[in-house]
């Protein structure tokens, strides 16, 4: 299945792009997507413990299942205001 990844702030800068596309086996979970991303972009690893994640705009966990066409957002610690 195909997953659209959106990257923000530090995550975006470490990857060098606001978007990425992943091809994952059916049955993959959020954690699998992150592991694959870290293989391609090792600079993300350091950030991983601090990332929040969202599937299609809703907060998600590493154990949540992904489905084809999902948008996965990588959300570093927030600092609005």
């Amino acid at each position: 299945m195909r997953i659209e990844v959106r990257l923000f702030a530090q995550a975006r800068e470490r990857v060098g792009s606001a978007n990425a596309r992943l091809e994952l086996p059916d049955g993959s979970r959020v954690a699998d997507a992150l592991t694959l991303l870290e293989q391609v972009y090792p600079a993300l690893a350091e950030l991983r413990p601090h990332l929040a994640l969202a599937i299609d705009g809703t907060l998600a966990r590493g154990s949540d299942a992904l489905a084809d066409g999902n948008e996965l957002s990588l959300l570093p610690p927030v600092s609005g205001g």
Partner: protein
Amino acid sequence: MAELTHAPIDVAPLLAAAARPECGAVNLFLGTTRDHHEGRSVLRLEYEAHEGMALAALRVLEDEARTRFELAHVVVVHRLGVVPVAEASVAVVVSTPHRAPAFEASRWIMDELKRRVPIWKKEHFADGGAEWVKGHVLE
């Protein structure tokens, strides 16, 4: 209702909308770009958001504040992109019958906004560096 904007925040219409006959208090809080942080000179801030999630989170915040503090009116506006020194990145406007909840609600909204809303702030320093502000892990 909450808004995100890439332009300077215009407070006049926010205050006009907050003038309510049933209220005795209006509070407007503005978070502005400060020219220094931890001893370093700051040239500007730059904000980025997951706009869909940020807008939804701000509207949830407004709803919670409305209930918790019995607000007659509440609006949060957050600016994105570059915000020069002394300009506002965020405006919170509330109207209440009595004044104490107006202060409490404004403060609570700002505290929660910094914890809950997927917006990120980068400081650009006079010494040439730039850093994302250490923030809160979104829960």
